[in-house]
């Protein structure tokens, strides 16, 4: 797992994806920070974090798009799958590499907190709560993106499909409101990423939501492993 993790990390930087991802993330979060926090004259960061949901949604597919699809296209998966490593090591090595880059990106909020420290008192509980909420959200989204990447050989298709999938997950709330059947509506709301995330930004640290995000991450990584396994039996 370590070897794959290190290779993916260096590949992110060699291919330039890391720079694009970090630059866009820093720029957009900076805009939200300026607009939602500095201009509003507050040290309350929740507004910034709730706006960041949509950035995360669109940027994570860029991070995950080529993780699996490129391997298949260039036949490098033959090297991985015939090496003495398990499928979980392959998938998790890639998963944690993407997650690490995401953590680097979102840790920019600690720089914002230094700026806020000059201007007033920081509410650390909301800031940290939000930080971890975003971490859990990213953990789930990356697993979804990685899974979709394993389904195709084309990285653009992978990126677009991942964005679409994440966007549909985002729309679950508004879709649920249109459903008349009470049970389905309840099911859809409970699967909503957005409302669970917003709950965090409002200062509610809900353990079931943490479990929800982590189990989503686990399930999609598991599905990715199944895809790799199934390809052998095809």
């Amino acid at each position: 797992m370590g070897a794959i993790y290190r290779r993916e990390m260096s590949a992110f930087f060699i291919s330039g994806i890391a720079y694009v991802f970090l630059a866009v993330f820093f720029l957009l979060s900076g805009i939200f920070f300026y607009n939602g926090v500095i201009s509003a004259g507050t040290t309350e960061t929740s507004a910034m974090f709730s706006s960041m949901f949509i950035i995360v949604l669109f940027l994570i597919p860029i991070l995950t798009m080529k993780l699996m699809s490129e391997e298949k296209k260039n036949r490098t998966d033959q090297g991985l799958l015939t090496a003495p490593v398990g499928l979980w090591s392959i998938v998790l090595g890639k998963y944690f590499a993407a997650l690490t880059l995401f953590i680097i990106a979102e840790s920019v909020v600690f720089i914002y907190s230094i700026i806020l420290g000059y201007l007033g008192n920081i509410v650390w509980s909301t800031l940290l709560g939000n930080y971890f909420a975003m971490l859990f959200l990213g953990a789930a989204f990356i697993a979804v993106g990685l899974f979709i990447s394993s389904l195709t050989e084309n990285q653009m298709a992978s990126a677009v499909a991942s964005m679409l999938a994440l966007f549909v997950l985002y729309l679950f709330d508004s879709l649920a409101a249109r459903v008349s059947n009470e049970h389905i509506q309840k099911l859809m709301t409970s699967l909503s990423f957005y409302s669970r995330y917003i709950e965090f930004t409002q200062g509610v640290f809900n353990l079931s939501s943490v479990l929800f995000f982590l189990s989503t991450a686990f399930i999609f990584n598991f599905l990715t492993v199944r895809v790799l396994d199934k390809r052998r039996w095809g």
Partner: protein
Amino acid sequence: MIEVKHLTKRYGDKQAVNDISFKVEKGEILGFLGPNGAGKSTTMNMLTGYISSTSGQILINGVDILEDPIKAKSNIGYLPEIPPLYMDMTVDAYLSFMFDLKKCKLPRKAHLKDVCDLCKISAVRGRVIRNLSKGYKQRVGLAQALINNPPVLILDEPTVGLDPNQIIEIRSLIKKLGKSHTVILSSHILPEIQAVCDKIIIINKGVVAADGTADEIARNITNEHKMTLRIEGSTHTAADKKEIADAIKAIDGVKYVRADMEREKGIYDYDVEADEKTDVRRAINKLCADKGWNILMLQLSDLTLEDIFLKITMGDNVRKDGTVREEDPKAKPNINFSVKDGELVASVGDDQEEAASSDDNDKNGGEE
């Protein structure tokens, strides 16, 4: 070392590999020979655990590849048809990655240096793989397979894209490795297999068509005794040709006679085919002695590996009664192999050209 039992792979209705069994011992080099699409790569992918078999068993060092894939895979070095290279990495970074991936315990620096020296890629270690030539990429692929000194090496068409010098280098490297490793190598190039391998498996349409050493295959498959004779008749004219051919045909056991080109002035070659039970050489000798003809040459031409390959892969009726050869003497590529005293002899030659040039010589001689 490697044992394969009744290996079968189906893709839907298509039977890619059907009931292949073989065994390779340590220090042996096994050659997989077959036309494109015969199932060579599929078999190799199953041996290395890249794809699974529909049924059958593969034992690497006694470990079943499906039961304990990680242990089995740690014994294998694999060079797939397309080397699994990350184009944006340098050779050094890539080999270092493979070193980690294979959990190699050998001293990193020294081992990578050895591998690079062996594959002659030391000069390009700092370069990005994308910018390397095809030959270098192939050798980086081979180097990757050699990392961690796996006892089993599986090489899928290892010399594709190399120039003739490099091919010879790689072949001698494989031969060297074959002494201490178990090697399986696939190719559709006959000379390659013959030059390198101890044992050969000819595979066609997913089934083993023949296996054994080159000699064994030739012996088992040959069911006709064929020879080429050069007989000097009494009159040195074309009339000789017919007379001699008819006389040989009348000999008991001769199935087929064909008068070939005029090799020397007024002297013809005859391709003679007899059934396998009778040795007709003495009868022919006696015939010629009686008639006053001189046998200038007698050469047994058992089926060459090339003949066998064509025969197996192009359908069974080819050349059985000589029809193909008569209709189309070019049906056979010009590289000829023959088994002589247990050694394979290769010669590049074109019968027609040879004959034409000897004719020219004769004419020149006449003019002088």
